[in-house]
C-alpha cells in the first residue's frame, strides 16, 4: 500500500508492504537510522519517536497507522537550527549517554515528557522513562540531563 508520512517536516511517500513497521519505514525508506530497534516485545523504547507530537514506540506502530501524520525523530529535533535542542544539549552536558544506542529513543521520550510535564520531580522523570531501557548509564545522568533541560526551559 502507499503510505505518506511527514518525517521531520518532509513528506516521505512510498509503496510498502502492509505489515511494514514504522521503525523500518523510518530507517529503510526515509533513510533515518538514528532510531534503533532494541527488542521485539515493545519493552525497550529504543525506537521511540514522536507521532503527532506524542512519544510512541515505532516498532509497535505500523507505517500505515502513521500515514498522513507527522513523525519527529532525533534527527529532526533541532529543526533547521545549528544549535542543539535543549534536551540534546543537556544530555551532552550531563554525560547522559555512553554507547548511544538507546539515546535517540531516550531523548525523544524526554522531549515528550517535558512537553507534558515541564517541571517534573526526579521521581516523575524516573517513572516517565520507565519504558526506555539503558544498559550503560544506570540512568543517573539521564535523569540529571532531563532535569537540567527542564530547568533551562523554565529560565528561557
Amino acid at each position, binding site marked *: 500500500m502507499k503510505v505518506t508520512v511527514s518525517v521531520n517536516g518532509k513528506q516521505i511517500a512510498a509503496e510498502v508492504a502492509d505489515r511494514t513497521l514504522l521503525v523500518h519505514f523510518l530507517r529503510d525508506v526515509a533513510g533515518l537510522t538514528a532510531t534503533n530497534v532494541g527488542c521485539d516485545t515493545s519493552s525497550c523504547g529504543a525506537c521511540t519517536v514522536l507521532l503527532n507530537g506524542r512519544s510512541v514506540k515505532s516498532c509497535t506502530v505500523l507505517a500505515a497507522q502513521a500515514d498522513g501524520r507527522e513523525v519527529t525523530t532525533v*534527527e529532526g529535533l533541532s529543526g533547521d537550527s545549528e544549535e542543539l535542542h535543549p534536551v540534546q544539549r543537556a544530555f551532552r552536558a550531563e554525560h547522559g549517554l555512553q554507547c*548511544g544506542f538507546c539515546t535517540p529513543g531516550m531523548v525523544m521520550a524526554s522531549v515528550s515528557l517535558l512537553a507534558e510535564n515541564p517541571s517534573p520531580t526526579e521521581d516523575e522523570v524516573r517513572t516517565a522513562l520507565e519504558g526506555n531501557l539503558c544498559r*550503560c548509564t544506570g540512568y*543517573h545522568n539521564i535523569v540529571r540531563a532531563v532535569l537540567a533541560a527542564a530547568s533551562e526551559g523554565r529560565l528561557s
Partner: protein
Amino acid sequence: MSILGTRVVRTEDPRLLTAGGTYVDDLRVPELAQAARATFVRSPVAHAAITGIDVSAAKEAPGVVAVLTVADMDDLPPPPPDSGLTGTEGAPLPLGGIWSEPLLAVDRVRFAGEPVAVVITDDRYQGEDAAELVSVDYDPLPAVVGFEGALSGDSLLFPAAGSNVACATGTPADTAAFDGCDVVVEREIVNQRLAPVPLEGRATAARWADGKLTVWLSTQNAQIARFILAGVLGLDPANVRVVAPDVGGGFGAKIGADRDALIVAWAAKHTGRALRWAETRSENMLGMTHGRAQRHVVKIGGTRDGRILAYRLEIVQDTGAYPRMGGFLPFLTSLMAAGPYDIGHVETAYQVVVTNATPISAYRGAGRPEATAAIERAVDLFATGIGMDPAEVRRINLIPADKFPFTSPSGATYDTGAYVEALDKVLAGAGYAELRAEQARRRERGDVQQLGIGVASYVEITAADADGGETARLVVHDDGTATVYSGSSAHGQGHDTAWAMLVEAELGIKMSKVTVIHGDTDLVPAGIGTHASRSLQLGGVAVQKAAVEVKEQARKVAADLLEASEDDLELDLDRGVWQVRGDPASSRTWAQVAAHAGDAGLAADVNYTQGKPTFPFGTHLAVTEVDTETGKARLIRHVTVDDAGTVLSPVLVEGQRHGGIAQGVAQALLEEMVYDPDGNPVTGTLVDYAIVTATELPSFELLTSETPATINPLGAKGIGEAGTIGATPATQNSVIDAVSHLGVRHIDMPLTPARVWAAIGAAAEKGMAR
C-alpha cells in the same frame, strides 16, 4: 593546568545525539548496497538429535537466495588439531576435542537457540517468513538442567566424555584449619545465570571480493575477531578486514567473533553475496552468551572477636552447552576468592559442568563478581554467627594500608590499596550510625516497611591479560591536527574523549583537533581491544607514550626550524606552540613543525604493556526498604567508593560507576535466566527477563578516592567492572539485613518479592525471629 583530571564533555556526543551512531545495521556503505539478509533457524528444544532437515518449502519462499545447513559446509578447512587444553590452565579458550562446538549444528543440538540453518533472502521480512518454513526433525534427548542435573550424569551432552564435568581442579579441603575456629559457618549459595542484554544485539555484515573478506562486526576486539575469522575460514589474516563501527554495548559478550558471526561470514562466501545479519532480541536472549551461573559452597571460620582465620570456596561453574572459556571464569573467581581480607588460610576448588543451556562467557566482571558475592555473603554470615556488626568485622579483617603490595593465599598480588579508608569513607558518607538507629526504631515499632543496610568491600583484578599490551599510533598532520590509532575499542566508554585529553595534555593540541580511530584492522592492524577494564591503563598509557615520542621528534624538528638548540626550546602547552624559551614571538605551530618534518612526518608507534594487572578496590553500601508483607525490596540509597587509581576523566569514571552499579543492583534484585526442567527458557524476552529501569533506582552517591597505581605513568587502574562487583553483594546483604530480625539468614539472588516473602515465612516457621 593540565586538562587531565578535569570535567570534560565527550567529543563523541554531538554525532550520537543528532545523526545517531552508526551501528552495523545502520551501515549504508556501497559494499553492502546489494547485500542479502541472513536469518537463522534455531533449535526450539534444549537437547535433541537432529534426524532430518527439510529445506524444500523454504527454498520456494519469496525472495529466498539460499537455505544453508551443515551439509553445505564442505568448503571449510578442517578444524585445527585438538589443542590439548584441559581447561584448568586459566586461559579463556574453548575446550576442543570431545567438547568441540560446531558452526551450524551437525547431528545434535545442545541448547535452545543453537543455530541449525541459515536462510538467505533479499530482505529481512522475507527472511523471517522463509525461516518458518524450514522443517527440522528433532528426536528429544533428556535435558541436563542445573548444577545437580549436570553433576548427576544421568544424561550426557557429550557421551564420549563420560560425564558432564569438562574440567576440575582445586586445593584439597583441610579441616584442621577450621577446627581451630570459634565459629564456622558453611552455606551453599548461588550466583545466578544472567543475560548481558546490551541494547544493540549481535550484528554482522560480510562481503568477499577479490579474495578478501571484509566483516563489519559489533565487536569489542576487531583484531582478535580477524584472527578468529581467518583461522576458522582458512584465510591469511592479511586478507581479512574487520571493521567495528559504533558498537551498542558489549559487557564482555561481544569479545572477538562468535559462532553466529562466523556462520554469516562463511555464508557470504558460500553464496557469493554480501550478507547482513542483525539478531532480534529473542535470538539475543538465547544466542548471545550468558554470564555468571556459579554455585558456591562457602565455609568461613574465625574467632569470636571477629578475626577470620579460614575460608573455603567451592565452585561449580555451569558453562552451558559448550565450554567456550575452559575454566577461565572460575579460575579468576578462585584467584580473587579471599577478596580484600587478610585471611591466613584460603582454599578454592572448581568444577566446570556442561548443561543444555546457552554457553557462558564473560559478563561485566567475568568471575570476579562471583568471588566478591561469595565472600561478602560469607563475611555477613560470619558476622551474624559471632553477633558483631558486619562493617566492624570487615574493618578488622581488611588488609591494612601498610601491607601493600599484598600477595593473597590464592596467588594474587594486590598492588596498592586503602581498604579500611574506603570502608570508613562510605560509612561516614552514608551516615551509618543514623541508618542503624533508624533501622532499630522501625524494628522496635514493628513497621511493615523495614530498613536494611548492606555493606560490601571488594578488590578486583583489571588488565588480567596485561601481557597482551595495547597499541597506539599517533600522527600529527601538517594542518596541525592529530590522529590517534588505538588498539583499544570503545563501545560506550568514551575513549575518543580520553585519548584526545591525553594528546592535549602532552602536546597542547586542542581536543577538538584530535581524531581517534579504532576498531578497523586496516587502519589499526595490531591491538587487543576493550575488555577486562584494561583500556586506560594499557591503551591510554600507550597513547601517552606515543605523544611523548612525537614530542621528542617534534623537538628536533622545531630546533631545526627555529635554528636553535633543542635545550633552548619549550612547548607552550596552553597555546600549543613550540618556541625558544622566553621568546613567544619565535613560536611555531604544530602545523608548521609537522610540515617541516618532511616525508618522515611526526608519527610514533607504541606497543605497551605494564606487564602485570592492577587491583582497584572499594566499598559499597546499599540501603533498602523491604515491605515485610509483600517481600518487595526497594533500593533507596547506594553509596560507594570505587578507587581505580588516578582519575583521568571524572565524567567518564562516574558514568562507568553508575552503569556498573545499576547492573550489579539488577543482579541482586531482578535478573535471572531461568530454564524449565526440560531446558526450555522461561525468561526469553525483555518482558520476563527483568533488566532494571530508571524507576527502580535512586540517584547514586559516589565518593571519591584515588590511590594511584604505581606500575604505569597514569597511575591508572580499571574502573569498567568495579561498580558491578561491589553493588551486587551490598544490595543482597542489605535486603537480607532488612529481615534478619525476623530470623532470615540468607536469600539467593535475585531477591524477588516472592523469594523474600518465602524466606520470611520459612524463618517464622522455624521460630527463628528474635
